[in-house]
């Protein structure tokens, strides 16, 4: 019993320690919205045909089909600035101690923006086929706790403890790619439905870092500092850096003029780039355990992109003991200046990266969803959903409980409560409404965060409009309450 309690606590703690990018905690059970297939290809959408996306005239722009997600696994606004107490009750106060207290080992601040260009689905007998083109932007920054610790408390506390400042979690990433997905789902038998999507990915731009090691150790005896680095910065951009600048001892890089001019002359070439090809897969399944209980599972965004356009890999690996400026007997100012310059060069050379212009791979942040639905009533379904995501060698988790109702044949409403992003204050909301063939939807996994953005570790919104035909009501189970 005690063991179970501990396991539950661990799961709960793990769920709270997450910051996810693409997520669909509320969407997952909105089977009337065809975009739910993005997170489980096996979901049975109750239309024979649907079409959506920005490229669809009128309906594709009212509203535009977009998805935005911001996630922060450590802090929210009020952890930095919040209303005071007592005579400060009417004032905003800066609360650095609280901010520091809330920081995790690595703070991930992540953004995910998606624009659906086209989404098409058709039901054929026992099979449902889909095609989707989506523009995706994933970007974010990871800041290790020790960066804040160093900046706000100095290096002496760690020095006295004899431990290094570990900046290895630091990271910056930006990826823009276009996804062409072709999917299908089919009923394997009466109880099991399987689905999958194959994606061809067209990378447009990428910058990402991999800091395996970046640390600073201050020796308590003589204050000498040891910098250790093992880091890589990869980039594949239409405008790249001049490697010549790296060959001289000068801090700083310059943009390659030729690439800049080429981009300015023909910016469209950026959007039509087909050199950075990748592949991805989504797979999913739904299983009717009992007439009242359905189980789901899916694996999303398992794939990679090979970056071949102007690939630049900046690699820095080394260790440097810094003892301060070496004092020599300088005969004149020129000698002293030369010595200072040597010192600066030496310091720079430690971090001076080697440049490799070879292609590289990036993996998509893959997610795993496992959930279930309990059909308590024809109009009332209870759901539970676990989500896990692999991101930068971390595993992010969330747990969502939901109440779902297809109120009428045209309207469905969904309410979720999620433990995610290290907080337990996410109340999500989803609504789909159909008028004739036009079906609108608006979904957020954290409605409360939109009301109280000062306490938001996650801001999430998906909306759009699809044209649907051939609604087919899913039959209720015999035992289900009506």
């Amino acid at each position, binding site marked *: 019993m005690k063991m179970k309690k501990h396991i539950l606590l661990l799961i709960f703690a793990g769920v709270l320690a997450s910051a996810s990018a693409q997520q669909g905690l509320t969407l997952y059970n909105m089977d009337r919205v065809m975009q739910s297939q993005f997170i489980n290809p096996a979901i049975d959408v109750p239309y024979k045909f649907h079409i959506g996306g920005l490229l669809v005239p009128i309906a594709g722009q009212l509203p535009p089909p977009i998805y935005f997600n911001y996630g922060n696994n450590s802090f929210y*606004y*009020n952890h930095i*600035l*919040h*209303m*005071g107490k007592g005579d*400060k009750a*009417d*004032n*905003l*106060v*800066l609360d*650095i101690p609280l901010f520091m207290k809330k920081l995790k080992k690595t703070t991930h601040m992540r953004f995910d923006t998606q624009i659906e260009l086209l989404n098409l689905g058709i039901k054929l007998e026992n099979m449902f086929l889909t095609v989707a083109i989506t523009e995706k932007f994933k970007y974010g920054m990871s800041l290790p706790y020790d960066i804040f610790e160093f*900046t*706000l*408390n*100095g*290096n*002496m*506390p760690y*020095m006295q403890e004899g431990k290094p400042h570990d900046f290895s979690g630091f990271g910056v990433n930006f990826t823009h790619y276009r996804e062409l997905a072709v999917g299908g789902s089919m009923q394997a038998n009466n109880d099991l439905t399987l689905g999958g999507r194959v994606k061809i990915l067209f990378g447009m731009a990428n910058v990402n870092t991999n800091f395996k090691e970046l640390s600073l150790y*201050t020796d*308590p005896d*003589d*204050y*000498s*500092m040891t910098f250790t680095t093992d880091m890589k910065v990869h980039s594949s951009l239409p405008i790249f850096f001049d490697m010549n600048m790296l060959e001289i001892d000068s801090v700083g890089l310059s943009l390659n003029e030729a690439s800049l001019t080429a981009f300015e002359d023909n910016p469209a070439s950026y959007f039509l780039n087909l050199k950075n090809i990748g592949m991805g897969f989504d797979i999913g399944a739904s299983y009717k355990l009992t007439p009242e209980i359905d189980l789901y599972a899916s694996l999303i965004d398992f794939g990679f992109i090979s970056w071949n356009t102007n690939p630049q890999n900046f690699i820095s690996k080394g260790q440097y003991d*810094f*003892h*301060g*400026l*070496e*004092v*020599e*007997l*300088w*005969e004149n100012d020129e000698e002293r200046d030369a010595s200072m310059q040597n010192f600066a060069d030496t310091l720079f050379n430690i971090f001076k990266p080697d440049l490799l212009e070879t292609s590289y791979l990036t993996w998509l942040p893959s997610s795993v969803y496992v959930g279930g639905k309990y059909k308590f009533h024809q109009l009332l379904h209870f759901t539970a959903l676990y989500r896990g995501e692999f991101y930068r060698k971390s595993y992010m988790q969330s747990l969502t409980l939901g109440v779902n109702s297809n109120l009428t044949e045209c309207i469905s409403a969904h309410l979720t409560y999620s433990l995610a992003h290290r907080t337990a204050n996410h109340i999500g909301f989803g609504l789909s409404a159909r008028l004739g063939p036009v079906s609108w939807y608006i979904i957020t996994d954290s409605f409360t965060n939109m*009301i*109280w*953005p*000062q306490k938001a570790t996650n801001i999430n919104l998906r909306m759009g409009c699809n044209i649907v035909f051939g609604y087919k009501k899913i039959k209720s189970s015999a035992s289900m309450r009506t």
Partner: protein
Amino acid sequence: MKTKLKYLLIASILMVSVFSCVKDNFNFDKWDKEVQYDASFAAPVAWGDLAFTDALRMYDSTGLFIVNEEGYVSLQYLTRVSSNKVNEIIYLNNQNVNGTVESPDFNFAQFSAFNDTVSFFYTDFLTFSMFNAEAEIDSLILKTGIMDIATNSTFSHSARLYVKFPSVTKNGVPFSTIFTYTPGGGSSVSLNNDFTGYNIDLTQTPTNFNEIPVEIRLTLFWSGTTDNSGTVSFDVNMKDMQYKIMHGYFGENTLFFESDTIDISLFKSNDWEIERYLFMDPKFKIYYWNSYGVPSQFYFDHLVAHSVLQGDMNILDDANNLPIGPANPYDVNYALVVGQRMLDSLKVNKENSNIDDVVNARPQWIQFKARATTNPAGLDHHNFVIDDSQIEVEVIMELPLWGYIYNWNLKDTAKVDLSDLQNEYNPIKRVLVRVDIQNGFPIEAFGQVYFTDENYVILDSLFYTYEERLLDAAKVDASGKVLDFSRKITKIEYVDERLKKLETCKYVVYAAQANTTNAVAGTVIKIFKDYRVKFDVGFEVDLEVEGNIDSISNAF
């Protein structure tokens, strides 16, 4: 209906409340702008591992420190002086020779028709006037020189004058020139003949030196007249001559050296004082570099050390019978072949001079006047000089660093402005400077820094204890050589309270004192070039800022 209205009202109130709360949270006008920053940093500042050789390298240009013949280090004070330039002593005057060929010098017996000619030939001698009456020059090569020859004929016949200098040659060809005259006579000149590179042999006359022969041949051509009277005169001038090389005997010449002074900064500086010291082996050295090919003697007219304690002292007086005064000049090595630069030296020490007494008198400077004489042994035709021949002399006072120094102290004051410390928001609450010194020199040092106000009233001192002030000397063996480093780690901490004391500081007075190892007991040490000192400087600083961010910004 009423119930619905009530719910609506409650919902409205809730919404207004929520949005008001949200708005307040993002209303930066409500930020009290109070900030608090409290951080502690430690970092290395500088380090060094300085060998005495580094100092030697640094001072190479001044030659203050050298590694002496025994392998340890000497402090040397030197000056280098040169003799007069050679062409101020041994030079070429302008030379002149002239003559006349007259009618009686000819035999006109067969001189009565066209195509009849008569000639007269004779050799004259151009005697060079020299820079020195004793000088007997054998030969020279000219670097520059001009020859002008002016002639005039008064004969009624046409004439031709041939002038030749058989011992003035260039590439083996003697210099000669021809003048022609029309009937009735007239002037003819040859000016600005460039003698650059000409070799002049002055031994081709019976005198065998200082003279060159001049061959004169005058030919008259009968020109239809019986008037044979007339003369032809010539005037030869050699001028602006500079030699490249000159051989012969130059006689006795005196070369004066610039008067010079050597400052002994160790004893002259006002920046420090030395209570007691001992130099075990002081030396006085004179080096000569002589490119004259002339036997020479060198001596000092005046060689005096000046000290505050004893006034002027003759360093090397005649009483010591040293070969350096006017009565005992020093025979300096001289060049035996052209291009040679002979080195010679004269070294005196406490065994053969009074240099020990001089050094103990703390001499502040040494002043000297010197001269050299050539050919002390008289006639010798093996002398030579070239156009840049010179005698250079380097005079050195060498103090080998073997001995001891006791209580070498220095003190100075610098003006400072620490008014920034008065700033209410001065973020520095504590500073600790850590200095780690590994001393490989057999020298112990004590330091102290005083902070004073504008009236020199001491506000604080850098060190509070004797131990803090002390930097131990490295231990030495019996020969005075260092055995191992001594190490000292000093931490100087300034907390807020102590920093406040410095707010009115206007002057920093720093004082230091140094002794060689166990100098108080007379232990002697040697300073070797591989002695070194290592140091590491780092700091800790506690920063604290608390207050309104606008006020803090304005304060800076």
